[in-house]
């Protein structure tokens, strides 16, 4: 493999990793900070993509689809937290798994009724539709590069909010010790609602941003859900930085696994996860017990 090809594959790996981070970041927020296992994360990813398709079809604008899809998902997240999820904080994980599994079925059925079961595609914004010639035969779509930049911006925003703002401080305190935070009169529960809704909105955002390169189809969230959990567990539960590291590792392992060890590509990332967990049982940057 010459240097140029290696560079392109590296780019593929990093780009895939950044996309994984975007989707997994919402899961790590909800899972790590609220302690809620949300199996419906992949379903919201799918719903985001379908919303993008639907809104873009009627408005013709990817940007309206982006804002609208994220907005609708955020509101849905608020509603769900208010009605269902808040009753499950601190409860057995099994109850959360049951609830979120039920949500998968409900969302899938809503998707079936509202959008049908056909495969769709979403056009990227016009000025991102070109591609850059990399080698004599291979070119790279500008939109994929734009996704990289976009994911980095989202990552920076998440880090900023969690590390530098008062809300972030409350979130971190709550994740560290919920009871003590409550005892000190810090409005952790109010913040919870937003954390859950942001998690859902991030899943949908992932689906929307990826829709133009991934196409929109019924089972698209299933595989993403598994990958997101691998990323979260690998990086360390509740650590956003860990999710970033985990996502990049998965992206690169998957890409180079497919190139160098095609026969093992179906489990290369799980092998990576097993090895990392042997070395660091709490994940790369995780502090708490899994």
């Amino acid at each position, binding site marked *: 493999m010459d240097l140029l090809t290696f560079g392109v594959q590296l780019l*593929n790996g990093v780009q895939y990793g950044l996309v994984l981070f975007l989707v997994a970041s919402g899961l790590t927020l909800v899972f790590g900070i609220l302690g809620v296992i949300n199996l419906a994360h992949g379903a919201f990813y799918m719903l985001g993509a379908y919303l993008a398709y639907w809104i873009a079809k009627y408005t013709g604008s990817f940007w309206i689809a982006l804002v609208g899809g994220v907005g609708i998902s955020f509101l849905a997240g608020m509603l769900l937290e208010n009605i269902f999820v808040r009753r499950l904080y601190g409860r057995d994980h099994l109850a959360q798994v049951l609830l979120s599994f039920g949500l998968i079925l409900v969302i899938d059925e809503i998707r079936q009724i509202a959008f049908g079961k056909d495969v769709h595609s979403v056009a990227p914004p016009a000025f991102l539709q070109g591609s850059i010639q990399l080698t004599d035969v291979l070119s790279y779509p500008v939109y994929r590069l734009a996704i990289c930049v976009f994911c980095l911006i989202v990552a920076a925003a998440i880090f900023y909010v969690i590390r530098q703002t008062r809300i972030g401080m409350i979130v971190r305190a709550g994740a560290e010790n919920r009871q003590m935070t409550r005892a000190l009169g810090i409005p952790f529960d109010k913040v919870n609602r937003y954390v859950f809704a942001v998690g859902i909105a991030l899943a949908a955002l992932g689906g929307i941003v990826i829709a133009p*390169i991934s196409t*929109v189809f019924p089972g698209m969230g299933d595989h993403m859900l598994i990958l997101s959990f691998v990323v979260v567990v690998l990086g360390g539960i509740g650590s956003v930085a860990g999710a970033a590291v985990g996502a990049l590792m998965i992206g690169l392992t998957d890409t*180079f696994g*497919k190139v160098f060890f095609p026969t093992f590509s179906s489990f290369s990332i799980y092998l990576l996860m097993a090895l990392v967990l042997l070395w660091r049982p709490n994940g790369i940057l995780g502090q708490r017990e899994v």
Partner: protein
Amino acid sequence: MTDDTLKSAFTRRTLLSGAATVGAAGLVSSFPRPAIAQGAPYKVGLMLPYTGTFAKLGQFIDQGMRLYVEQKGGKLGGRNVTFVQIDDESKPETATDNMNRLVGREKVDVVVGTVHSGVAMAMVKVARDTNTMLIIPNAGANDATGPQCAPNIFRTSFSNWQPCFPMGKVMADAGHKNVVTITWRYTAGQEMVGAFKEGFTAAGGKVVEELALPFPEVEFQALITRIATLKPDAVFSFFAGGGAVKFVKDYAAAGLNKTIPLYGAGFLTDGTLEAQGAAADGIKTTLHYADDLDNPANRAFLAAFKQKTNQDGDIYAVQGYDAGALLDIGLGGVSGDAAARDKMIAAMAAAKIDSPRGPMSFNKAHNPVQNIYLREVRNGKNAYVSVAQANVDDPARGCRMTA
């Protein structure tokens, strides 16, 4: 979901509106006809995916079959027909139970199903164990008319081997010498690529690398970069559904479609063209059907299907339609007396059907012998180019009935 059997009087009108009830997911519903002079109606069990990824395919097969029965005045071989339907959800794990329910509780005379190969193989096993008539209207697993073949099992679709083998010669004739293949690493993918390789090698070509990724992953970028590095003369691929759409779009987005032509099994561009858009232009595929196949049977079929469902018929609808035609011939051969099983099977095995796909007969393993067409994507249609190979007969390797 309930197990309750929904009963209602069966009239011509309910048959015509049957398409509307097709969506009744997971519900076993039967429509018994009032008994008439010739005795109980012939009971057809439709075991198809009415929900899930393959729901549209299941619906089209169902509607195609019902269209045929309607055209024959609600009869097959002169005998009245009643349908029972069950949703297999494309889940192999519940396939045996579902099949047993049709055979045991519903006591159907024939089962027609299904789309998913894993489900179909479970159905084949039950059909062999209970000696139930089974017609497979889509699933292409080679084994169903290979090692697992049986006198009571027919197929009105294709074996995975069939549409891909002729592509070998087509691509060799187009001057391609070094070809890369790409598919999902699962049975259908491997059988299709295997058949292509067989045909291509026999025609003097060379497969330089066989790329595969786990089913149903859709992250193709690494392998597309690999193709760009290998610079083959052409690429042969098999994907279907959402994966097919994404692969075709990624391939075009990487600019490879300009220098390395993309070929594939017909499923790459069937039912997916709307989502693939311009990215699919110029892709050549082989299949046992083309959207604009110009023969009287196809023109009549497409018009009738459009009138019944207000949708454009496709290969899946044709396969369901032909399942009806095959049963019609079988029952016709015994004057509606399904108890004369051996005679009925002999009539079906000897059937010559003037199908919308062209002439169709059956080999000793009960797999169709049919033309495979070369199609090219033009203006969002799989346009007919030529007959890639006429009367393609699956080798039915491992089938004892061919001896």
